């Protein structure tokens, strides 16, 4: 059974604007899929639906056996907390918490914060010596690596990355992609949303959106 399955998913805003129209695809466990498309193609809307931050107005979204179209907002929050690890283009670290504390925040909302576990994840992205630095004291690449460590801390079934290299220079972009390859090799299921063909090529499979529909 696929880890994620979308069946005829559509999203209509205000009864008029059709952001997604008849989306069908599935993602197997351990697969790395890139969702690509130009601005306004519906990438973010799709990401919101897969990331349990919004509900589709039509169709079915099944994540790890749970039909997301059937659950209320609280349950969506719970599923997001339990099953998804998010990586953002703009990193989005809590500015007044250190690198390690930013990872522990995700643990805190999930269950018990544990400094050792948080340090292990930080070590995994090569930032153990930056553990007590505030986000403002970290480079863009370092912040993104903290963001990846935070996404991994609760052992999610799906890593959802929105333009993970969008704000990075080439060196950091390579570093981050290397981490994604390692995660994929370890068996993690990854969905990256990107408009960059270079990042898209790193994934096993690309889904290209255009005007809210799958082009290829």
């Amino acid at each position, binding site marked *: 059974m696929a880890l994620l399955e979308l069946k005829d998913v559509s999203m209509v805003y205000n009864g008029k604007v059709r952001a997604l129209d008849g989306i069908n695809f599935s993602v197997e466990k351990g697969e790395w899929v890139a969702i690509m498309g130009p601005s306004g193609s519906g990438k*973010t809307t799709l990401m919101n639906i897969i990331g349990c931050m919004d509900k589709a107005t039509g169709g079915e979204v099944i994540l790890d056996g749970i039909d997301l179209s059937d659950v209320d907002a609280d349950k969506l929050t719970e599923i997001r907390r339990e099953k998804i690890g998010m990586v953002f283009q703009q990193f989005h670290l809590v500015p*007044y918490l250190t690198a390690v504390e930013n990872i522990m925040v*995700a643990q805190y*909302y999930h269950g018990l914060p544990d400094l050792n576990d948080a340090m292990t994840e930080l070590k995994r992205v090569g930032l153990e010596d930056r553990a007590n630095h505030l986000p403002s004291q970290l480079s863009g690449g370092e912040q993104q690596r903290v963001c990846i460590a935070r996404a991994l801390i609760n052992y999610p079934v799906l890593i959802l990355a929105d333009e993970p290299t969008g704000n990075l220079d080439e060196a950091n972009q390579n570093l981050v992609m290397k981490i994604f390859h390692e995660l994929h090799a370890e068996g993690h299921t990854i969905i990256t949303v990107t408009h960059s063909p270079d990042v898209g090529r790193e994934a096993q499979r690309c889904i290209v959106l255009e005007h809210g529909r799958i082009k290829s």
Partner: protein
Amino acid sequence: MRLKFFLRMIFYSLLRRRMRMLIALTAVAVGATIISGMVTVYREVPQQLGREFRAYGANLLIIPANEAATFDTNKISDIREILSGHEIIGAAPFLYERLEINKQYILTGGTNFTELQRVSPYWQIEGAYPAAGGREVLIGAQLAKIFSPYEPSEIIGQEVTISAGEGTAMKKYVVSGIVSTGGKEEEFAFMNLDDLQQIVGKPNQISIAQFSVVAEGDSLKTLEQKISSGVTGIQPQLVQQIANSEFNVLSKLQVLVLLVTAIVLLLTLICVTTTMMAVVTERRKEIGLKKALGAANENIVREFLGEGCLLGAFGGLFGSGLGYLFAQSVSLQVFGRGIYFSVSIAILSIVLSIIVTGVASLIPVRIATAVDPAIVLRGE
């Protein structure tokens, strides 16, 4: 561990966002300062004004019960015991007897002049009060005119003969001064209580005792009842004009201070709410992020209320200290007397600050829970 991390999060949220925290803290501290100051003033004004009112004379009289002419001086110490806990400005005993002074019958009061000066500081004396233990007498201004019609003040320093009446021993006394009060006292003569008691042969007897007590209207009435039931042979009476006007002025002042305090409390609430709303608006992205990470609404509410309460506690702590200084300065400027630091008012202003900040955080917190987590993906 969860609680420890929660506290760490809200503490660092305040500590590491210094400028923002300082603005919010200032808002809370200013509110707490004014509240603590006003509550202190509210509590102190009656006491301070009560003392001021004592300059207008006694507010409690003790007279003999059951139509007796006199009562024992020891009753005064019994009454003092009942009044303990209230500041007694003075307690002047009086024995009134008709004496023959320079062959004229004059109503004469024997008293303790040290206590008299405390109870009736408004008495105007030309010359001096009779010295304790000296054979001296104080003459009322009207009486002085009788004794020395052309130049009443010349009576000061002259000797007068005093006796209990015809056929009794005559003693010589020196007039130490003339008293003007604008009242009946100007027709009387006054001497040391012991002397009068000895002359008339009524040791330890007094006709009336005048008490000047710092107490507000209702508590004075309670004291009157306590004395009435606690001490036999006497009857307490409130000096109604003084007690009533004191009560009226104090009540109006207290209502005024209470109103000002309530308005300040409301303004503080608005000010803190506005500040907290600004904080929430500025942190929409952070709230969205936390929700995207799986924070439930309860988590967000707890964090913002926690921050608000911590802010309230720190603001209240600073404010209660500054409020004391404010009240102290008001008291020194207006009444010329300092006030004591009240731990209970400090605790009250800290608790009130926490409640005000907590309540003020409720609207922003409601806004916070409505933040859409998807904003972090849209990069808004």
